[in-house]
């Protein structure tokens, strides 16, 4: 828009028709980005108050609060803790209880979305742990078939036990009890039977699966 072509004063558009009269200068050019919060010449109108607006506001805030407590509010168990605490072992299972409160009608979803997690806290742990252990083994290239078969048999057995027990009406209490029992039992098994050492396997973290596992349902602390 400024004069081009050897400092001639003609501009690319006709001065008259756009309304700039002679003698008036163009406004000064801006040398920096516009301010983030420019001063407004016209102040905005106040919000409409009234009963309806307040009721709508209350409805909105209630709805948001209610959604947070529903099973469809998905929050991965926060794995970022500044300091590992002993109580984490017992706290982490509480959060995931809400997830399977909602039993969807599987007919309406594609088959690939089916997560056959009958008991999230339990199976999540066992699946990821056994996966992690299997992966570790493959990486280390120590294939102890006997241990693997034993392990699989045990976890399968436990899964079957849980599935059959689920059909009872008073499954909840029993499940919770069995939870703690089987949890301790499985922990014991997995920890001790790995590689026939006296040491608990998870103490030795060679860093290969750092950040690779899914971090929800942590039953043991990572060192």
């Amino acid at each position, binding site marked *: 828009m400024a004069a081009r072509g050897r400092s001639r004063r003609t*501009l*690319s*558009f*006709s001065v008259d*028709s*756009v*309304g*700039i009269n002679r003698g008036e200068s163009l406004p000064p050019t801006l040398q920096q980005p516009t301010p983030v919060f420019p001063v407004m*010449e*016209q102040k*905005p*109108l106040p*919000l*409409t108050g009234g009963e*309806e*607006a307040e*009721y*709508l*506001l209350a*409805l*909105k*805030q209630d*709805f*948001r609060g*209610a*959604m947070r407590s*529903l099973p*469809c*509010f*998905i*929050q*991965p168990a926060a794995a970022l803790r500044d300091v590992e605490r002993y109580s984490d072992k017992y706290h982490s299972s509480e959060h995931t*209880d809400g*997830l399977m*409160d909602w*039993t*969807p*009608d*599987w*007919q*309406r*979803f*594609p*088959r*690939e*979305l089916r*997560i056959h*997690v009958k008991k999230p806290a339990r199976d*999540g742990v066992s699946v990821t742990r056994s996966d992690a252990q299997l992966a570790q083994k493959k990486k280390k290239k120590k294939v102890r078939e006997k241990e693997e078969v034993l392990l699989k048999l045990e976890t399968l057995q436990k899964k079957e036990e849980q599935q059959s027990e689920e059909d009872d*009406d008073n499954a*909840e*209490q029993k499940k919770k009890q069995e939870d703690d029992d089987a949890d301790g039992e499985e922990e014991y098994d997995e920890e001790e039977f790995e590689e026939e050492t006296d040491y608990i396997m998870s103490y030795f973290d060679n860093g290969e699966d750092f950040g690779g596992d*899914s971090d*929800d349902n942590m039953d043991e602390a990572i060192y």
Partner: protein
Amino acid sequence: MTAQEVRLCGLLLREHFGEVVEKVGTQLLRSGAQNLRTIIHETGLSVDLVKKSLMVLVQHGACLFSSGRKGPGSPTEYRSGCDRILRILRYPRYIYTAKTLYGDTGELIIEELLQRGHMTMSGTVKTVADRLTQNMEEGRSMDYSEVSSAFSKLVETHFLQRCPPLAGAGTADSTNPAPGATPATPSTPSAPPTPESFPDCYKVPHMTLVGRGKRQLTAEDGEDQRNAKRQKMDPEAHGDEGIYWQVNFERFHLHFRDQAIISAVANKLDQTSSEIVRTMLRMSEVTTSPAATCTKPLSANEIFRSLPASYNIPRPILDQYLTLLVDDPMEFVGKAGESGGGMYVVNLHRALANLARATLESVVQERFGSRSARIFRLLLRKRHLEQKQVEDFAMIPAKEAKDMLYTLLSQNLVQLQEIPKTPDYAPSRTFYLYTVNQLPTARMLLQNCYKTVANLIERRLFESKESKRLLEKSQRIEAILASLQASGAEPEQLTEVEEMITAPEKQQLDGLRLHINKLDSAENQVDETIFLLESYVNSTATSTS
């Protein structure tokens, strides 16, 4: 799917479903239809989390799945649309409308369905009856039949509709259940079938559900949870398995549109005219299709007969009112013939266009002043004007008119149209005309509204995060107070607990609460504008196609 829409959808998903669903949702919105593998790879989340998020999105209707494009063997593809997620902004309005029309029962039914996405009728009735019973006095409970009748009424007036059934959705080679006869070729599916394409859309199923609402025993939390879980796991069959219901947003939108027209008439003319228009709209509720340009013609005799009993205006006065409405420049009502004492229609699309135009004018007025608004209105009426003509018609001195025009031009509210006299577009021999195009300007303002709401939400989240520690403390103290009061403590203990929050902290909390309420309220208000502009833009889309 503009960047502003995607940003707003992401924030809404985050607030209502959590950050995981937000990640998956924005991935779907940004990159279109994808299969499960791609989503897992792009978002970097674990398989389980992605699956759960997709299920949540499908449950709430925000995501659709279909067989892949490459033929029957390809994996299912998921796609998402901004429209459905943006509706979340309007949920409070839907719930409030249900309350005004059908009372507390209707309000709770709609609220439950909005929270859960899809639900069976029996499930909804039970939950709502339980909730109503909670709030009633001791010893009284809500009967299931009352809730069922409210539900049936909602279905009859089309506020609720059945979810479209999915034919063979589990298998990988499912064909899209299109309403007409589908050829066997696995071509890319066209738009998914609307719920209304199925004949049973609004049929209430025969349901055997007898009983009353259960009051939740105020036991400890652990017991409560177990009781609740046991209730949910009760597999009672009520005869309506597999039939899921969802909220019919389009019907609510028609209702809002009618309300907007009626209140506009009431503001411009008077109460009686608005009652006449309300009667006309009520009579044509069932006969008008949602995308119709105007209602079916109604004769003045019919209108006279259908007026509410409290308005016994004599027949000649009614005719005068109708003539006034027809002559009004807003063109809400038009005359379509002379039979039956005069045939009258309500011009829906034109009313929407006028309402949108009023919105644009008011935006210009509030941002730039009344004189700029005068120029804007002038350009809307006269279409194309030169600089000199603008100054003359608007009766504004030349220098100020030029300033205002340039400000409007820089904000893109006004466009410049060049009309050359010679083929070489020489500037001295070209006409430069200022013009306003209503539809593109409305679209631009709509995007501005989305950006505004997104900014409001972000600011609100920022404010809460700043004072997170304080908020948590106050929540803990409220919980302590509540438990103390429930167990009957002395007033000294209560005051002692209350004093745990110091006075400056209380002030800070009050200020925070005020800010958050203001921001929330502002979101609701901006959503009203969004609704008007969206309806206008959609109405033009359907009329031109």
